Structures are given as structure tokens and as C-alpha cells.
């Protein structure tokens, strides 16, 4: 990161930044200090890996960065804008436009087919025609190797297939930041590579920042940066 910090256009290149994030979870006796002052910067066009033992707070951090949760302390900047004090409406709009989120447990809408799931964020944004949405959703699903299962209901897909649909869905509005919580967790080596290569390729092509939580050292090695986490802190 050091070489880019000195560049004057640096701040324009930063898609997402957070400073000194603290988050406690649980109530009363069970209250845990999960995140203890986390700071990071995600640059456009780069792929980041977050690694660390189970329970160290990776998912908790991702929810905060994805504006799905509020930190107890610290600030999150999306495209330079501080987000924690924003109203729910602005935060929701930011999620739709600028953030693509892949949950650790894929979370598709089971009533919808693969292609419909991918189109849900696009429909909300409402910028494309029906044909354009279908075209884009089809192309992303083909990219993740599901070109032949477009109209399968989410419940009729395997765990790995669902995960790949969730990845396609996170890409659908071409967000500036993609946050993926173990996107390759359920995948074999072949499909892990397909997904990872797709994310890296898109990061470069669309100038997106990608943050991947992973337990897979091979994947982590291939990223531009590795963020090592332990007990709610980065230990680089």
C-alpha cells in the first residue's frame, strides 16, 4: 500500500475506507468486544483478502463495511462520504448502487429462479430495460458457469451453485465495492478458480475494489493484498 499512499490522486482511487471501527455484540454478561479498532482502505481495481481464525470478526467487519450494521465507534467512508451518520434511506441507496455483497451463507430468495435472483438488485435500481437486465444477468451467470441453469429455482440448485448465483447477483449493479464472505467456501478447486478469476478480472475491467474473506491460502496468495485478522484486529 505504501507506494500508492504518496500519489496525489490517491483519494480518488479509494472506494471504501474505514477508521478505528469498534463493534460489541451481545447483551449484558455476554457482551463481547468483537472488533477492536479496525482501519482499512480499499482501492479501485485491487483485490484484498481478509484471513484469520474462525470467530475473529471477519463477517462482523464485512457487515459493517457493507452498511448492513452500524459500528459502535469509528467511521466508514464510501467514495469519500462518511456513512455512519447517514439516514437509512441514503445507506440503503448506497447499498444498491455501490456495494455488492456475497453472504457467507449465500442467501438467495428461494421463491425466485437463478436469473430472477440476479435481476433483483437491477430491478430496484431501475436503470435498465427488461431485456438489458436479462442480458446482463445471463452473461454473469454464464461467467460463473451456470449458463444452463438460468431458470432453475434457487431451491433446485446445489450449495455451490447457489453461491455462484449469489456472486453473480453481487456483481449485477456493477458496484464500486464487492464484499464477499467466503465466496469459494463451498466450491471445488476448479470452480473456486473460475470464481476468483472472474472477480479479479472484473476488478480490473470495471475498476472495482474487491474484498474477499477466505480460509483458502492459495486464493489469499493470489490477491493484491492480504489483511491478517486476529481477535478483532489486523495484525500486519
Amino acid at each position: 500500500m505504501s507506494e500508492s499512499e504518496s500519489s496525489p490522486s490517491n483519494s480518488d482511487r479509494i472506494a471504501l475506507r474505514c477508521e478505528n471501527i469498534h463493534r460489541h455484540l451481545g447483551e449484558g454478561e455476554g457482551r463481547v468486544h468483537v472488533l477492536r479498532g479496525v482501519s482499512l482502505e480499499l482501492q479501485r481495481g485491487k483485490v484484498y483478502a481478509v484471513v484469520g481464525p474462525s470467530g475473529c470478526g471477519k463477517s462482523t467487519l464485512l457487515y459493517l463495511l457493507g452498511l448492513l450494521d452500524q459500528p459502535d465507534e469509528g467511521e466508514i467512508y464510501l467514495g469519500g462520504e462518511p456513512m455512519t451518520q447517514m439516514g437509512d434511506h441514503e445507506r440503503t441507496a448506497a447499498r444498491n448502487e455501490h456495494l455488492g455483497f456475497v453472504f457467507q451463507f449465500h442467501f438467495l430468495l428461494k421463491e425466485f429462479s437463478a436469473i430472477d435472483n440476479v435481476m433483483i438488485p437491477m430491478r430496484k435500481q431501475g436503470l435498465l430495460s427488461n431485456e438489458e437486465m436479462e442480458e446482463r444477468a445471463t452473461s454473469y451467470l454464464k461467467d460463473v458457469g451456470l449458463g444452463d441453469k438460468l431458470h432453475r429455482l434457487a431451491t433446485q440448485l446445489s450449495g455451490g451453485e447457489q453461491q455462484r448465483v449469489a456472486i453473480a447477483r453481487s456483481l449485477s449493479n456493477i458496484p464500486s465495492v464487492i464484499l464477499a464472505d467466503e465466496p469459494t467456501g463451498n466450491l471445488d478447486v476448479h470452480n473456486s478458480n473460475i470464481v476468483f478469476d472472474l472477480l479479479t478480472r472484473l476488478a480490473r475491467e470495471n475498476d472495482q475494489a474487491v474484498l474477499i474473506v477466505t480460509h483458502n491460502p492459495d486464493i489469499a496468495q493470489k490477491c493484491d493484498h492480504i489483511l491478517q485478522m486476529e481477535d478483532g484486529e489486523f495484525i500486519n
Partner: protein
Amino acid sequence: MSPNIRIALRFLTANKRAMAMSLTGIIFGVGFFIFGQAQTTGFQQFFVKTILGTDGAIRVQDRIRITFKTMELADEEDDSDSPWVIENTENYKYIEGIEQPLEVIDALKEFESVTGIAEVLTGSVLVSSNYRSYTGRLFGVDIDDYIAVSDLEKQVIFGSLEDFRSKPTGILIGSKFARLLQISIGDTVVIKSLDKNSRYTVAGIFETGVSDIDRERIYMKLSETRSVLQRAHGASFLQVNLIDPHRAREEAFHMMNTIYYHVASWQERQKSWLDAFLVLSVSTGLTVSTIILLSGLGMFNTLAMMVMEKTKEIAILRSMGYTRSDITSIFLWQGVFVLVAGNVLGWIVAVLMTYGVSKLPFRVTGIFTTDSFVVNWSIWHYVSATIIASVIVMIASYIPARRAAKLEPGDVIRGTSQ
């Protein structure tokens, strides 16, 4: 189609069980609400219609004579139209009948609400056919005046009013009375009053639907009646019809204070029956309210369940940029779809049940006669059922949807792992 409507439809059709349950609730509630109303108001409406068509809205009878101190005063001011109000019943008494009908008729014609006035002379007579003799009640009327204050024209089921009009000795006789006497059109009967016998021909048989009337009433020309009852002048009462019969009570009070005759509205004369109907409709009202309450609670429950089961989906949609109001509107749309379908099906059920029951052979021979269950078809039953159902469904979908939309998506997702 907006994304919210699309999602609402998909959620709804994917959860067939919940949809069926909430639909059933609405169909049941709407259907039984309408059906209940149709039945209870049916008999009452039928009774009121029959009474109005037979005895008119208002009956003017019995002159009021002031007895106490006010007597002199009242007599002196007889011609002036002072707004004198009768308040104390101890101070006056009734004198039976109307001695000067024409004067009273002239006074009544001043009322704008009056559409017709008929002079009626009644008396008890003995009616004999070849087989039997029964006591009957003779009604002497001028037929054209009387038609203006009743539905007699429609009540004639055999024979004709023309025959009655043209033959001086023609009479109209109640259907049950005719059956008792075993007579039909063209037969003659002997009518006896004050030791005087006269023969009359049956020109028509009428049926009012009110058993007591159909069992004893005979209509005869007023002039003939005078000779039978040996009353050269005067009338027993005046039958009056109004533009709006439902204002009869107020009009009667007003008339009474103007003409000093006892003026009875149909509500006053039929008070005991109307009270019985009131009790009946209160009791069915309670039953129907219970039905509404129960199916309302059921609906509330299923709709709330539908939202609860979707907490995870709500969090997913929120994470992808659907706002709180999007979530609320998705569940409101679900409510609207269920509501529209439930109402339409509920109407159909109500129509079928109401129609079915109206065709049930159900002989009533108490206060009035009918061959089947009487129902009241009113659009207002449908409208009110729909309004009530809409309010319940909208509240039942709005409250849980709003609560679900308030949750932070992260909190929901953290608490869910699959």
C-alpha cells in the same frame, strides 16, 4: 410491473398454505357477514313492506277532546293554527272515529309530505258461504283513493279490481278467509250486520302476506258499507301515505299537534313486532360481529405469520438496496392481492348462500305468510363487508410489515445461518 409488486406476487404464490389460509379467512368473513345481514334484514324488510302496502304509513283516528282546564281554551282556538303541543295524557281523551272526514282530509292535504288519503269505514260482520260462517272485518273504501295509499292493486291474486269497481255488490276477500269459507271468484256470500242480511259476489281475492289480515278482511264500496253498517256519515279512520314512509313518526307527531286527532304512524302501530325484529337483529349482529372478529383475528395471525416467516428474505432485500417502504409495500401488496381475491370469492359465496336459502322451502304462517326464506339483497351489505375486510387486512399486513422493515439487516443475518 414494479419490482415490489413482482416480489409480492411471487412471495404470495410460493407460499400456497399461508395464501390459502388468509384467503379462507377473508372469504369466510365476507361471505358470512353478507349472508347474515341478508337473512336478518330480509324478514324485517318484508314485514315493513307488507305493512306499508296494506295499512299505509299513517292512520288518523279518534278525535282528541281536551278534558281538563285546557278544554275551553282548546275549543275557543279550534280554528286558529296555534302550535299547541299535547304533552300531558291526563288532560285529554279520545272520541272514537272521525265525524267530519272531509274537514280532516282538507287539513291533511296541507301537508306536503302526504301523497294520498283514503277514508275507511270498518265494522265487524258475520260472513256466511254455503258451507260456513265466520266473523270478518269489513273495510268500506273508495277504491281509487285506497289504491293511492296501499298496494291493494298488486295484492289481488284472483279476479280483478275492474269487476269490483263496476259491480255495486262486488267484494274483495282475503285469501285465507276465502279458503276458510271455501269460496272462489263469482261465488256469493251473505254478510250480516245488525240483523240485516245482504248478498255479495266475490269479485277478487287478495293476499297481503299478513296472516291476520288475510284471514278476516273484506273490502267493500264505501257507500255499500254505510248501508251494511248503518252509518250514514263519518269514517273509522283515514289511511294516509307519505313520500317517505320512514319519516312517519315525525309526520304523525306534527299532524297530531295540528289537527287534534290521534295520528298513529306504522312504527307506533307495529311497535311490538318492530321491537322483536330489533332484538333479533341485535342478536344476529352479535353473532356476525363474532364471526368478523374471529376471522379478523385469523387473518391478522396468518398475515403476521407470513411476514415473520420472511424476516430473512426481508434482510436480503434490504441488503440489496430495498428500502423500508419497499418492504412495507411488498407486504401491503400481498394483502391487497389476498383482499381482492378474497372479497370477490366472498361475494360469490354470499350470493350463493343467500340465493340458496331464499329457495329453501320454509313456510312461515305466523305474523305473515311466505313460502320460502325471505332475504334482503342489498349492495350495502357487500360494500360494508368489503370495507370492514379491507380495514382489517390492511392493518394486519401493515403492522407486522412495518415492524419487520425496521430491523437492521445485519442483526437478522447474524441471527440466521442458512
